[in-house]
């Protein structure tokens, strides 16, 4: 373990906390996406109940499926709002999204480890949450190859975030660096970890 990989967190009371590595953060993010998908589906049910079905299916006609673009865009907007509230709110209030919490990860300010500000939350969400929402919300109006290109761009973007996090000593992805945030995880302190250089990340003492 190199020296520059060590940081101290003067305000953190936790002992044995280290920078959360990419696999943990990836799993946490997928848990969040699953929850958001359920919330988006509930939102779609509410819109369907309030305004009528977004997709009409009639077996006697061809084409059999008809999409109400207006309602679909409304659905996308609702999903985007849900995503913003979910991430920014939990990062700020709970010091981590449910996905983070499930894996005992915390999100804090890069400088002092304190809960992040709303401003930090918004910047972070714009970089990690909005792209996915945007792509998923635009499906009613962007179709065919353009949709495929958008998905490809999205994959490239998330790959950039992943690689930037993996290569950073403090495991700060591009989104963390721009929002000045850091994600840590509680772990069992292994006295000989430092000597063994287990590659588990940087232990925060």
């Amino acid at each position, binding site marked *: 373990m190199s020296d520059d990989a060590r940081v101290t967190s003067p305000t953190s009371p936790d002992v044995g906390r280290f920078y959360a590595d990419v696999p943990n953060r990836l799993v946490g993010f997928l848990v969040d*996406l*699953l929850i*958001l*998908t359920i919330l*988006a*589906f509930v*939102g*779609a*049910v509410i819109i*369907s109940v309030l305004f009528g*079905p*977004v*997709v*009409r*299916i009639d*077996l006697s006609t061809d084409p*059999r*499926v008809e*999409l109400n673009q207006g309602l*679909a*865009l409304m*659905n*996308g*907007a*609702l*999903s*985007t709002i*849900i*995503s913003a509230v979910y991430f920014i709110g939990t990062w700020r209030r709970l010091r981590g999204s449910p996905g983070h919490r499930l894996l005992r990860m915390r999100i804090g300010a890069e400088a002092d480890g304190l809960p992040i500000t709303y401003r930090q939350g918004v910047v972070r969400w714009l970089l990690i949450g909005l792209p*996915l*929402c945007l792509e*998923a*919300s*635009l*499906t*009613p109006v962007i*179709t*065919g*190859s353009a*949709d*495929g*290109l958008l*998905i490809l761009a999205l994959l490239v973007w998330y790959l950039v975030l992943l690689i930037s996090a993996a290569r950073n000593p403090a495991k700060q992805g591009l989104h963390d660096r721009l929002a000045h945030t850091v994600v840590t995880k509680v772990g069992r302190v292994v006295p000989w970890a430092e000597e063994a250089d287990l590659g588990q990340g940087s232990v925060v003492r």
Partner: protein
Amino acid sequence: MFADARSVPSESTVDTDLCIIGAGAAGITLAREFIGSSVRVALLESGGEGFDSQTQSLYEGPVTGLPYFPLDTPRLRYFGGTTNHWAGVCRPFDNADFESREWVPFSGWPITVTDLDAYYPRAQEVVQLTSDQWDTAGWVGRDRYAPLPLLGDRVLTRVDQIVPPDKRRFSDLYGDELKAATNVTVYLEANVTEVQIDEVGTAATGVSVATLTGNRFAVSARVIVLAVGGIDNARLLLASNSWFPNGIGNQNDLVGRFFLEHPRFVAGVVAPTNPNLSIAFYQEHIVDGTIIQPRLAISRETQEAEGLADVQIRIDPVHDAALERAANSADVEHLKALRDALQGKGAGDIGQDISNVVSDLMTWHRFTVPGAPIPIPYPDVMGTVMRATPREKQSLIPGLLGDIAGFLYTRVEGNLPLDSLLLTARFEPAPNPESRVTLVRELDEVGMPRAELDWQLSASDRHAVRRSMEIVGAEFGSAGLGRVRILFEEEGSEWPADLAGGFHHMGTTRMSDEPKQGVVDRDCRVHGMSNLYVAGSSVFTTGGSSNPTMLIVALALRLADRLREEVS
């Protein structure tokens, strides 16, 4: 070598040993047999090396009698002849096809299948077939599909072989060989307008040739062979009337008569007991590298017992329209095209292939909840899908997913569930002297009278097809495979509206040892002429129900052996 008839000096005479008229399956096969020999061969072809509408129009002529294709449609008039659009279906005529059968009027060839034993294997090589397996039992077991489990022995399965598409055109296969041959000259653009006869009327001395550019010359030869197809062989003999007013070989008014085709129409429909009944064996498919097309047929024993001509039946599945659409959809085609492109077998633009598939892939995305990070269908879609029947479910899944579902269904089940089966009968028509090719007054551009076709069938043909369908129906029923509804009645004179031929023109210079029964003898020599021969399906005494090309080639090879002695 190849020569252009338009550059042969006008009014000159080209002298040769063997003159073959027509560079189709028969003519090319015959000419190849003399490559490298001391025999000088002139192969006269009306067309050039490619299609030309002006030359093709020389085939035009009126059609009377039963509805038939315009006469310039079924044949092609350029180097390679009709092999240029040949479907490649092959099956040798068997012994029964050559026999005299009292229930088939005018049946009985002067030769038997034994006379062709030595030629069928060679014909198989010429037409580029790789297998000599003609017994159905030889395919069963090697094939992943199985024939229908019909219980009796009245209906059996016959297997045709199909030449791969890239090996069907004789022009591509043998053009270079003929170009390189020093003793064979292929005269392109050479239209033969008349066969010239000697002063006593017992031998042909040569032919008159005309080009569309107005050039006219003659070819003199020791032996002449007509190989211009089932209609034009008769046309040329009839038009060669300078010596014989009714045409050469027509002393008994037989030239042009007995025109045969392989008539076909949808004669029945099966309501299958089991919608998942596999008929994949009866679809064109590949077994050990050979393309085969099995069909149902009435056994020869049953034909004899019932007094029926040969009838064979092609089975075509009719599937649920939605599933069929999915299995054959553009989406699935895009996937196949991309697969081929990635395997280096693609014919198009791989970028376009990728774009097509990506575009198709995105279709389903439109029906997922917008903004949901993980694509999940709309609640409306999920509800409808859950309430739908299994078949509706497949067609409801939009876009590529639905198409892939349909496509996978075919892979998993072997085939799509059947709505019904169509039974298309193709039968051996009884030779009928009233079915004939004659000449009309109108001349074509090189001054030859045009041919008129009066295609006729007989009452015995109706009986053969109707009774064969009844037998097939009974066998389907007793095997529990389904109920057969026969779509036409034996009574009446009208044939079904979908009656069509197979582009097989036969019988107009039929073979018989008796000059009063046929135009050519067992050696394909025109009766009364010492050195004039006919090659091609016009010499067929009966038409059988098998495709004629293999027999045409086998007879041409046999004729070559006969001529080798004569010309040498």
